Structure formats: structure tokens, C-alpha cells
């Protein structure tokens, strides 16, 4: 900057004020650009979902649907979208529940009995960093042998394996922030371990459990590679169902859009309402010690 620094913006000369305005405009322009990058495909998906097939490739293209229709939803549901949503719900909710049930005791032990950021913590988290393509081959062979190929059980096991490290790590970090005094107070008050867990630990770690659960759910809901390799005709999760739409000679973009919208809507709603608790838990992670 040239010239003397003004003591406060209020007494800034005209030139500086202009610079500041321009700065704000530029900042917002960048924000709009970044938002557009994420939101335009989403908007396009949404609009496509309501357009009849004939309207998809007209020249000049229409932005808003001219002859709005819901037929894409019903057709998309019928050709595999419905099964996909059902199977995804089954697999992701059961695996998420398992992750939380198995993860909480592990996280508690990690938080209370092991040093923070120690080897144990790192080893657990590093399992999550494994590229999925590495274990998938092993799982494929194993599942063939154990008759777990193309079963809900098999996919639930894999998703639990994949998400458990993250859940443990997140919960452990969260539990570390809960002062030990509460647990000691409960012990003094005479609570046996299960009451201590149920009356004190669980309510206090609820935001952490919620966050970890949502993340595990989202990962399982979106997962494609394991589902593609480890299932066949019987179990078809949503990402796999969507991909199968391409197997037809001409993919029907309208149906794809419709089922895509159905697939992401629950995630958007959950994320919107959980924003605050998500941010709180994440800032615990990052802002912590």
C-alpha cells in the first residue's frame, strides 16, 4: 500500500474507500464463482429431473423445464432406483449402527487409556487412509470363499471395516474433551459402569456420536467401488444402480437426474440441520490440542 496508513476506515480518503469497495466486490465475485462451480451441476441435475426426454436435447436448450413432468421419478424408481435406495438404506444404516456400537467402547478406551496422538491412535486412523482398491481384492476372494459375495451381510461388514477407524478416531477426540470429573462424580455417586455410560457418558458425547454417525452414513451411502466388486444381481446399492442406468443403449439423463436428486436430498437435509453440531465437532478436532 502506498501513502500513510489511515488510523481508521471512517477517516479514510476517497481512494482508499474505493479500494475497499472493490476489494469487497472481488471477494464476493470469487465466492460466487466457487459456489457456481459446485451448485451449477446440482441445479442442472435438478432441472433435468423434471424435463421429459424430448426436451433434453432441444436446440436452443431450455433452462427451465417447459413441459414439467414427474415421469422420470416413477420410471427411474421402477428400473432400479427404488431397489437401489432400499438396499443402500439397509446397508448404510446397519453398518453405521455397527460402527457406533463397536466404535464407542474402542474410542473410550483410546481416549482414556492411551496418550493422545499416540501410536495407537495413528494406527487406527491409518487404516482409513488405505486406498479402497487395496483391500477390495482380498475381500473379493474372502467373500467368495465365505459365501458372502453379493449379500447384505458382506457389504455391511465391508462398510463397517471401512468406517470404523474414522468413527473411533472422531469419537476418541470428542471423548477426550469431556472432563474426567463427570465420570469420577458418577463413580462417587455410586453409578455402576453401565449407568455411568448411559446417564453421563452417552448424553455428553451425543454431538460426537451424531457427527460420527452422519459421516459413516454418508460414506456408506456414497460408496461405489466395494459395491461394484463385491455384489452382483441380488444387492444393488444406489450408486451401483445409478451406474447401471448407463448400461442401456442410451442413458436416460432425466431418470438419472431424478434418482440422483432422490439420492442426495436426505444428505442435504441432514447436513443442513446438523451444520452447527458438525462444525462444532470438527472445530473440536482441528482446534483441539
Amino acid at each position: 500500500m502506498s501513502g500513510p496508513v489511515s488510523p481508521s476506515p471512517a477517516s479514510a480518503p476517497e481512494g482508499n474507500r474505493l479500494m475497499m469497495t472493490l476489494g469487497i466486490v472481488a471477494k464476493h465475485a470469487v465466492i460466487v464463482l466457487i459456489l457456481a462451480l459446485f451448485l451449477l451441476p446440482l441445479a442442472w441435475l435438478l432441472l433435468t429431473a423434471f424435463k421429459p426426454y424430448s426436451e433434453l436435447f432441444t436446440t436452443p436448450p431450455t433452462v427451465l423445464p417447459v413441459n414439467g413432468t414427474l415421469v422420470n421419478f416413477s420410471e427411474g424408481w421402477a428400473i432400479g432406483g427404488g431397489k437401489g435406495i432400499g438396499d443402500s438404506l439397509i446397508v448404510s444404516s446397519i453398518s453405521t449402527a455397527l460402527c457406533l456400537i463397536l466404535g464407542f467402547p474402542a474410542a473410550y478406551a483410546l481416549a482414556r487409556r492411551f496418550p493422545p496422538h499416540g501410536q495407537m491412535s495413528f494406527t487406527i486412523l491409518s487404516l482409513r487412509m488405505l486406498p479402497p482398491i487395496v483391500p477390495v481384492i482380498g475381500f473379493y476372494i474372502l467373500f467368495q470363499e465365505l459365501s458372502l459375495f453379493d449379500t447384505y451381510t458382506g457389504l455391511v461388514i465391508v462398510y463397517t471395516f471401512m468406517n470404523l477407524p474414522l468413527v473411533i478416531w472422531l469419537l476418541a477426540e470428542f471423548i477426550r474433551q469431556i472432563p474426567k470429573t463427570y465420570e469420577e462424580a458418577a463413580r462417587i455417586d455410586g453409578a455402576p459402569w453401565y449407568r455411568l455410560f448411559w446417564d453421563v457418558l452417552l448424553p455428553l458425547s451425543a454431538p460426537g456420536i451424531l457427527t460420527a454417525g452422519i459421516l459413516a452414513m454418508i460414506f456408506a451411502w456414497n460408496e461405489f467401488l466395494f459395491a461394484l466388486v463385491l455384489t452382483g444381481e441380488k444387492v444393488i446399492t444406489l450408486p451401483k444402480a445409478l451406474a447401471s442406468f448407463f448400461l442401456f443403449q442410451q442413458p436416460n439423463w432425466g431418470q438419472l437426474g431424478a434418482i440422483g436428486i432422490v439420492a442426495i436430498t436426505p444428505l442435504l437435509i441432514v447436513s443442513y440441520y446438523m451444520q452447527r453440531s458438525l462444525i462444532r465437532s470438527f472445530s473440536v478436532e482441528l482446534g483441539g490440542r
Partner: protein
Amino acid sequence: MASVTLSGVNKWYAGVVHAVQDVSFRIEDGEFFGLLGPSGSGKTSVLRMLAGLERPTSGTIAFDDVPVQARSPQERNVAMAFEQNALYPHMTARQNISYPLKIRGLSKGEIETKVADVATMLNIAHLIDRRASQMSGGQQQRVAIARALVRRPNLLCLDEPIAHLDTLLRARLRGELKRLQRSLGTTSVIVTHDPIEAMTMTDRIALMRDGVMQQIGTADEIYNRPVNAFVAQFFGLHSMNVFTVSDVRDTPEFSGQCGGQKVLLPDCVKPHVQADRRVAIGARPSGVSVHKQGQAPRGADMLSLSGRVYVAEQLGDSILVTVQAGETTVQAMTPPSQVFGIDEPVDITIRENALYVFDGDQRTLRFASGQSLPGADRIASFG
């Protein structure tokens, strides 16, 4: 309610830190007992072992002469109020107080009556449906104490329950706690690093340092007969002045050297000077007089020393004057009429009846307030 006996209790952490070293004492039934010491002295470890949150590495803890060191807090029926995060944050005051009763399976009606009683006693009835975050620190501690008292424990453990409150509130709660303990007669132990808290509230005090018990006694005993220089300096509103005098000789006058400064000693010190011609002198600031240079009285019953005023601090009804005498500093409480400027040369005198004498290593008290202590005559006198 119970009496509590600790014998030969040791606590090691991770096999490396000897936090509590061979501690033994007895708390009588209904007594209010203070565990006092600077941070890291092991006082909190002792309390946690009493409460059953930790087990002693060795030694026994007995309630009414029944060993309990292997029992859980519930089996011991102890209650505890913590320094911080005392209340369950997701519960109201009422839920907090009734929690130990709920665990014990009392009926709804019983719980309600007991909670109402204790809430009235601690004057928190109007806060009963608030959560911790909606109460002030003092109110939270009161609710925590209510939770501790609601089930009439054998032993009430207080872990610096008022240390985090502001000064005025602390002073008020000190009195309230003391009255409450007296009226209930519950055997209680309070951990504190504040000698004033220990002195004002408790019947007897155990003073610890680095895991080792220094002295157990009433406030009066510890204040007037501190066993060593550490206790003397730690205990009381103002630290006792303690300095070692070396090269003590009888001729031409009874005197010694202290930090490069000559000290004239009173005759009462004579029997306590060691063979290596050292002796340690102690005096509380209230027993030290400061005089303008050359105006100090002289006498065989008086210690005198000269120095310069380092700083004078107004305390309202008195002035705390710090005098630098060679490398030694001595604090004196003087009347507000006596005004000294910084760096003003002064003489200090300490009368025999305000004098404490320790051995040269400041480990043992030999003489206090005009009296030699039993056993003091056994020291080899220097001349």
C-alpha cells in the same frame, strides 16, 4: 459418619513418581480435616485414595477401623465435591442432587423430600430447576455440595471446592461450609493450597510437601510450633522470615554472619548453635520491628541486623516493609505511622518472644516464642 485411619500409605504413579510417601494419620468421627500443601504435594492423591477413586500402592485405609482400600467409592459411601466441572451439565440442579439417590433405588417420594431438605439447607431451592450453565460458580458449588450431602455420606471429600470463586464469595462460603459441617457432624476432608482456608475452616490440618507429611495439628499448633522452616514459611497469611546465620561466635559480642551482613544474636539462641557454628533464625513479620538507622534499642534479649528498605507495601491498617540485609530479605509489619522511603538505611530488631530458632539446615524447630523445645538441649552446643 466414620473415623478414618491411614497407615503407611504410599502412591506411585507409573512406577516412577512417588506422589505420596508413607503417610499415616487418623481423622476422628465428625472431624473437619484439612489437607494442605503447595501444588504437587500429594494432597489431592491422598484425597482421591480416601474417596476410592484411586488405590494406594501400599498401606491401608480404614473407615471405623475396617480396611476399605480395596472398596469402591459406593461401598465406602463417600461423597465428593470437585474443584471444577462439578455438576453434570446435561442435568438440572434437581436431577444432579437426586442422582445418587436414584442410583440407590430410593422411591420418588423419598428422593423429593430429601432433595427439598438439602436444597433448603444450602439455600438453593430457587435454583432447583436450572442447569449448571444457568448458575454462577458459587451456586454451582452449592448444588455440588448439596449432591454430596443429600445421602449422608460416611466421609465428605472436598477437593478445593471454592478455590475458583472470587475472593468475597470464597470468604462467605468458607463460613457457610464450616457451619454446615458443624451442624451435620459429617466427617469431612478438604484439600486446599490456601493456608487461610485450612486455618479458618478445619479442626486439624495435615501439611504436606512433595508427597511427605510435614506436620499434623490444629491451626494454632502449626502456626505457633511449625516443625520446620518450610511449614513456618508456608503456613499463615504472611510467610515467616527464616534465614541461616553462620560463623556464630561469642566474642567480642554474640553474633554471626548472614548473607555478608553481621547479625547480633540474643542469648536465647546460644544453646542451639551447632558445632559447625550455624543456626537458623525465624520470625513472623508481625514480630519484626524496623527502626531508623542508629535508633534501634539494644539488649541481650534481642536480635538486631541492619539493611536497606527494599519496598514498603500499604496494607491499610499496617505497612509491610521488606528490608534487604546483605543477601537476605526480611519482612516486617509496621504501624502505618512509621513511614520509610525506598533504599532508606534501617535497623531491624526481633525480640526473644517473637523468635524461632531452627537447626542450621532449617529442618527442625528448636526454640519458639521464648521457650526451648523438648529435646533441644541434646544438640551439641558450639561453645
